[in-house]
């Protein structure tokens, strides 16, 4: 039956975008996605060439503000030029992003899933939604910090924003419960 063969191919070639950051919640989301979305397909066992879902790992670096940092006593002469501080903050951010992405890429390789990574700058909510639209992914996966309603209103929730504004289907992975009965 050609239709069912086509459906399987469509299923296996699912492009999934996963938002990652340094939080455990997002790594749990990545692990969940790899376990449930990709190994399930591997068990079907046919057509190993088409058995390629793809994962796009997206890490968004928040923009660094240019503040002037007053350092030490003695007026304006002691102001460090903003550049130096901004540079070092940027470098720290880059190192952090690199370690986050390398850990995520390793997880994908362990599960034999093709993965690509990208680093974006700006507001996480908007950048993730834009990236999902541009890459025309089938599914966007985000972790959730499991905040209550008040915290969410104050701190903001990336998954909440994306759930309402992304045009692609979105999967929100909750952190595992402490008292899980199974």
């Amino acid at each position: 039956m050609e239709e069912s063969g086509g459906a399987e191919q469509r299923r296996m070639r699912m492009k999934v975008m996963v938002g990652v950051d340094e939080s455990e919640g997002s790594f749990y989301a990545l692990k969940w996605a790899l376990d449930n979305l990709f190994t399930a397909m591997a068990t079907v066992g046919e057509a190993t060439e088409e058995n390629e879902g793809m994962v796009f790992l997206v890490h968004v670096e928040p923009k660094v503000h240019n503040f002037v940092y007053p350092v030490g006593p003695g007026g304006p002469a002691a102001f460090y030029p903003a550049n130096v501080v901004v540079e070092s903050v940027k470098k720290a951010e880059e190192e952090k992003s690199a370690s986050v992405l390398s850990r995520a890429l390793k997880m994908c390789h362990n599960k034999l899933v093709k993965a690509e990574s990208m680093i974006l700058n700006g507001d996480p909510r908007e950048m993730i939604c834009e990236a999902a639209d541009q890459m025309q992914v089938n599914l966007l996966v985000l972790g959730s910090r499991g905040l209550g309603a008040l915290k969410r209103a104050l701190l903001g929730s990336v998954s909440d924003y994306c759930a309402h504004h992304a045009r692609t289907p979105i999967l929100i992975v909750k952190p595992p419960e402490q008292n899980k009965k199974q």
Partner: protein
Amino acid sequence: MAESSSEKKVVVIGIDDSEQSTYALRWTLDHFFPNPVFKLVLVHSRPTATSAVGLAGPGAAEILPIVDSDLRKIAARVVDSAKQLCIDKSVKDVTAEVVEGDPRNVLCDVVEKYHATILVVGSHGYGAIKRAVLGSVSDYCAHHAHCTVMIVKKPKTKH
């Protein structure tokens, strides 16, 4: 502790009469099935007749049974067309449930009952104001369900 031979992962999907939920069902069937690992549970929540009628007026007692049977017909129709869609996509392991009550609670309860791996809901795509006034089931579920939630939106036909 139930190490049953079929440790299938349960996918619960909420369905109602809308186009968006049919689209969500179709998307899920296309992308997740046929698949030996997943088991599909369709849930339709039927509003109770009393909540649909609203405040009791003088004639309420008479129209209640009519409203009730109408809701029952709608529920049956929704479930049947969903089951038909599953059969068309050759997905066999499907359970369907019709539960009375508020959709938000019903969906979360079904997730608990089946220890679902994932809950799929469509989204009407309301803006912020409509959502505040009419309420959003997908929003509630995304925050209160105890499992992963997938929200499938029907793409708006823009440009």
